[in-house]
């Protein structure tokens, strides 16, 4: 920053440096190419203006090698940038295994976050420094987008599915949190701050928020209240698969296929149980679509995940 005018955004996450490296490389490439072309056009325009004495004789027709060489050159350069961007992008899908898992729920027009310990905050997100954090995003109404410019991350929260975004904050401080997907009247008001704190401060902050009920505990209560335990419980009469340790495990389906019980599978099994039926079970489970809201679904998922000994947060198969 110079004189309060922002020229370059702050780099405050482990990814930011990588993204910026690509950005600045692209910037240099574009500047060189753009200015060369500008120079060429302006140069020609001046040199060959009407009435100038420039030499206009000589080769006039197109040259094959010239056209071929710039085509091939652009192709190679384009593929380099493609590969570079893709490698960084694919990393978004692989959060570290030991990440702290926070749920984020978008609704018109606020972000509601829940820490693993159940502490709830609106338009504020507190995270520890130097520790991987996964935010699993859902939306209660329209599409929103979780955007922290200083971290160079962005992810839409889409109604009807769970998406993930992860980061490792590298510098304590307060950073803008925006909603980047237009979501209605107060779109520009939807957002607030991400506060990155030293681990001990973060722990103190968590304590000061009071011992809320953890997400998993809330999910367990729901699990009973909704009657899930009636069938999935150990001593139930209806035969339903046991859910102990289900998360992250392969599940055999009745159509001879196998899927990993990831968040997508668990979510679909609750809302659309007929879609993928575990082998050997009758398709008798009713759909809970419309009976539970996104926040309750997030709690249920947290509970189901807590039944697995080694929660691999947000891991995809």
């Amino acid at each position, binding site marked *: 920053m110079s004189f309060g005018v922002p020229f370059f955004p702050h780099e405050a996450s482990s990814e930011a440096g990588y993204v910026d490296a690509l950005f600045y490389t692209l910037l240099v490439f574009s500047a060189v190419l753009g200015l060369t*072309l500008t120079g060429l056009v302006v140069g020609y325009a001046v040199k060959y203006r009407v009435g100038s004495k420039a030499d206009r004789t000589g080769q006039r027709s197109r040259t094959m090698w010239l*056209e071929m060489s710039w085509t091939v050159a*652009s192709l190679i350069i384009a593929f380099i940038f493609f590969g570079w961007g893709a490698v960084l992008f694919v990393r978004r899908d692989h959060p570290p295994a030991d990440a702290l898992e926070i749920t984020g729920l978008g609704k018109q027009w606020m972000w509601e976050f829940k820490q693993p310990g159940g502490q709830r905050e609106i338009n504020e997100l507190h995270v520890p420094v130097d520790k991987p954090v996964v935010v699993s995003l859902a939306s209660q109404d329209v599409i929103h987008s979780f955007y922290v410019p200083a971290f160079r991350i962005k992810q839409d929260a889409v109604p*009807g599915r769970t998406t993930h975004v992860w980061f490792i904050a590298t510098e304590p401080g307060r950073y803008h949190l925006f909603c*980047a997907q237009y979501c209605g*009247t*107060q779109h520009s008001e939807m957002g607030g701050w991400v506060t990155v704190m030293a681990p001990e401060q973060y722990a103190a902050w968590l304590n000061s928020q009071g011992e809320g009920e953890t997400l998993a505990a809330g999910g367990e209560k729901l699990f009973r209240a909704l009657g899930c335990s009636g069938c999935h419980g150990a001593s139930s009469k209806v035969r339903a698969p046991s859910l102990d340790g289900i998360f992250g495990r392969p599940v055999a389906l009745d159509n001879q296929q196998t899927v990993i019980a990831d968040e997508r599978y668990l979510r679909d099994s609750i809302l659309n149980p007929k879609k993928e039926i575990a082998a050997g079970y009758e398709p008798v489970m009713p759909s809970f679509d419309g009976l539970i809201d996104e926040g309750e679904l997030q709690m249920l998922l947290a509970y189901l995940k807590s039944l697995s000994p080694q929660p691999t947060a947000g891991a995809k198969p």
Partner: protein
Amino acid sequence: MTNAAMQGTYLGQGSGLRAWLLSTDHKRVAWLYLISLTAFFFLGGAMAVLMRIELATPAGDLVSDDVYNRLFSLHGIIMVWFFLVPSIPATMGNFLLPLMIGARDLAFPRLNLASWYVFIFGSLFALFAVVAGGVDTGWTFYTPLSTLYANGFVSTAAFGVFVVGFSTIMTGINFIVTVHTLRAPGLTWFRLPIFVWTLYATSLVMVLATPVLAASLILIVLERVFGIGIFNPDLGGDPLLFQHLFWFYSHPAVYIMILPGMGVVSEVLPCFSRRPLFGYKAVAMSSMAIAVFGFLVWGHHMFVSGQSAYAGVVFSFLSFCVAIPSAIKVFNWSLTLRKGEISFETPMLYALFFLGLFTFGGLAGLFLAALAVDVHVHDTYFVIAHFHYIMVGGMVTAYMAGLHFWWSKLTGRMYSETAGRIAATVTFVGFNLTFFPQYMLGFNGMPRRYHTYPPEFQFWNVLSSAGAVVLAIGYLMPLFYLGWSLFRGARAPDNPWNATGLEWQTSSPPPPHNFETMPVVTRPAYAYDMKGLEHERFSPHREEAAR
């Protein structure tokens, strides 16, 4: 306008309202479009200026959030569907396509007139939506916001856009059939002016992409009016599917908006440098390539939408591929100037500015196609700056270039060259002042469609708002001096620029059915270097006299 000198030209065929509104002459239909599009351009532009004034301060002090959202939604809807998509094809394309290929009219003149009426009918719906209370979905109509939550006149506006889509398809079919069946003897495909190639490629996109937009708009209207929940997540509908359908149209639509502009520039640059277009075949083929590849890249609008990372990688790869034909074109245009004899009349100034603005807009596209960078700048002002460099800096600049280039053919009059050069320069300066700061805003993380913003972004926003005022002046100037020339301008010669195209072999303005005798073509396009004429201003009359 009608007087003795216009007798025998298309302008002399009756001047009453009836003679204009019922004429199937493609040249008069072009005027109907030109007048309606100019109105829409300034309506959409006025909304943009209001937004920029609002954004001069971080707080939302000029208009309320609801009004602001309606402003940008309608600015997008009007500019995209009621100006940019029909802009060059329906005005200059309509006027020039038959002239350039030596035909008496388009293949279906009545369909052509009907397309204008359909356009007006559809746009009245959109205007009704504006007057009745506006639309607040953004021009993208994303579900479920548009179907379940928006409280504006979404169905009205969507229906208007749907109807205008039909007008687009009619124009597209007409152009495709005309190019295939009505070329003059000797006018082979590789003798066609690039402008015709780009119109052909554009029509292809219009015909094949617009119906998909129509389908998605039908589904939105059904959901709002009849309660059939196709994209409703509560019923299992997929909001992302709407985005797929929408961008299947709307990304190629970007090429509908830029290809004809590329065509205009390919006409103007050779003419004012007295050189054949460098690499004619490469430019022609890259137009077709852009039209086809343009359909393969829509997913790059959805990298962070929740579509699979695999799809993201595929779409990014394809997006880089589509950059190649555009790059080829820029190189070819630049080298066309080499060893030329360049003069800087208004159309040439606009064309050169196009070259610069399009290049810097296109280069920003590389940032957006690069996955990890797009994650950061997606849905920020970086994107706004990028596509305004292409759509406004590219297409509108080319539109102005074409309007000045063919003004004499359209009207039989000349405009003031000094006023034209000043307006072109003011536009260029104003444009860069408006949109370059938006790159900075986007890179620093200011999301788009924000009514209020954190104070540290104010510096760039003030610059941008100041630029918008300059830009508005640049666009208002032609309205006056071109309007003035319509009645008071000097009589234009048939071929004021000594250009080669068939359209210049008719009188200015052309007679009702364009050609008294069917022209026969014996030369490639842009034969500015015909033997013995290398350093001469090419003129068909002179050539005839020499023979």
